[in-house]
């Protein structure tokens, strides 16, 4: 800014204040009129003052200056970033809520494994007796599980092949499927399941195959059995063979199998999930416009009702609107909100007929394992 202009402005303001206060003289007026030339800001300001000459401008100006001087020395902060941060937090919370609401959770509450805590005298050893309770599904599809004989004592901690709880459930199904295909007696299969569960539940540092082999015995054999495909495991389920020490050929086979294990486990788990439940849908009045098979296929693709606690059948009370759009009125028995939401989405992927009708769709969820 031009310093002369600034000085003139200061002088002009001082003259205005003199005018307002009444100390204005003719010489002040001369100076003031000189300052008015070619400056619209000053000219309009002067015009404003002389428009109301009888008012007490000096008091008003004094009051304004007092108000300005009385302004606290606060720091101006723009609220815009804070608003964005608040919006982001709200969005994050909503997203987390949505994820929590829609993500299916594996319920392992019904599976209780109780292992006695290692005693102070035997810090590095597993307990001699294990008390294992299998899940509801296991107990209903197979013979009840009794206590594990003390001969199944595991002296060395096994390698946890599946560490997280979800994989744990899938692996359990895998072992059950293997057991059902083979000709091994039911009690033997149960024992294998129990051992597998024990192995999965125990998270310990991975031991080398050679270390494990030194432990020897039937438990070692079981640990390798769960890594083998059904056909291969048949051979090694023979107690006579499993009792023998491992030769080099078998060791190589086992190494190869262990390397291919993660991919094979994932494939088998997926296959088991897809085959675990067969869905049958029935309704006396209504049906999808594109037929039941498409609807059932969508249900299968959604992989709903894979939990152990899912009932054998569901009754869906549905109302078909005038435009064929279905409205899910209720489900009996109740299912989780996420499952209900997903089911409603699948229902609404189809147009239904006849329109303007209410009926009940019965979904029969047949539990099946591979080979059944």
């Amino acid at each position: 800014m031009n310093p002369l202009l600034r000085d003139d402005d200061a002088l002009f303001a001082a003259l205005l204040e003199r005018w307002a206060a009444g100390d204005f003289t003719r010489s002040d007026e001369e100076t003031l009129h000189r300052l008015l030339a070619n400056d619209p800001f000053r000219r309009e300001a002067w015009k404003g003052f002389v428009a109301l000459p009888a008012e007490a401008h000096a008091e008003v100006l004094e009051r304004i200056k007092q108000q300005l001087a009385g302004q606290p020395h606060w720091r101006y902060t723009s609220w815009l970033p804070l608003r964005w941060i608040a919006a982001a937090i709200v969005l994050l919370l909503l997203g987390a809520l949505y994820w929590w609401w829609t993500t299916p959770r594996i319920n392992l509450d019904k599976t209780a494994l109780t292992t006695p805590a290692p005693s102070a005298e035997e810090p590095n050893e597993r307990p001699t007796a294990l008390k294992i309770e299998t899940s509801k599904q296991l107990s209903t599809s197979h013979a009840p599980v009794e206590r594990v004989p003390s001969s199944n004592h595991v002296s060395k901690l096994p390698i946890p092949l599946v560490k997280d709880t979800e994989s744990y459930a899938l692996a359990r199904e895998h072992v059950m499927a293997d057991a059902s295909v083979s000709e091994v007696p039911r009690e033997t299969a149960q024992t294998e399941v129990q051992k597998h569960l024990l192995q999965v539940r125990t998270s310990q540092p991975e031991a080398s195959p050679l270390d494990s082999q030194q432990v020897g015995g039937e438990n070692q054999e079981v640990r390798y059995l769960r890594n083998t495909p059904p056909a291969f495991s048949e051979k090694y389920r023979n107690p006579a063979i499993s009792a023998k020490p491992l030769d080099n050929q078998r060791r190589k086979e086992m190494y190869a199998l262990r390397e291919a294990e993660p991919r094979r486990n994932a494939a088998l788990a997926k296959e088991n999930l897809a085959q675990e439940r067969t869905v049958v849908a029935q309704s006396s009045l209504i049906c999808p416009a594109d037929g039941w098979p498409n609807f059932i296929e969508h249900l299968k693709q959604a992989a709903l009702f894979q939990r152990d606690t899912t009932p054998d059948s569901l009754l869906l009370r549905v109302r078909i609107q005038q435009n064929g759009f279905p409205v899910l009125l209720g489900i009996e028995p109740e299912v989780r909100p996420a499952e209900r939401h997903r089911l409603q989405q699948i229902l609404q992927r189809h147009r239904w007929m006849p329109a303007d009708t209410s009926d009940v769709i019965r979904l029969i969820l047949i539990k099946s394992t591979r080979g059944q």
Partner: protein
Amino acid sequence: MPRFFRIKAESTLSDEELLAYYRRTSEVHYLTLLYERYVTMVYGVCLNILRDVHAAEDAVMSIYEELVHKVQTHQIEAFRGWLYVLARNYCLMELRRQKRVSIDYQAPEKMAYHDAVASGEEFELIQDYADTHHLQQCLQKLSDKQRLCIIQFYWENKSYREIALEMSEDIGKIRSYIQNGRRNLRLCMEKNRP
């Protein structure tokens, strides 16, 4: 640093420097210093548009509050001109909001003040014709109070306050007498100009 020295140093800063300080530190203190330089002129502009002392006072403070936010978000090349436009626009908007009369319209009772604004031209007239016969004739045509105020102010170099004390009148009335007398004098002299 003691406040006395700090204020003295700040008072020497230019508009742009104060503006930069405020933008950098967001301390309203710098903006207040800057606004105080122009608050009288802003008040005058608001008076001219709103024609009401209290409305103008409110407008001056509202403009200051707007400045606090707008200075941070606007690119300002010359603060003085920018402030003039901002103040003018604010008062015009305020006038429109109050659904008052157009600013071009002047009430009849205020026409005297409106004409009296005419700047230094009439002042020159008084200077030029101070000793002429025409001026003496026109002065005689003014009312007593107007004539007395004009004479005391222009030829006796008295201030408004001194005239007010002498005439036992309010300062505002003295200003009005002088403005109206000056306007009437100009009109009279233009009519009688050879």
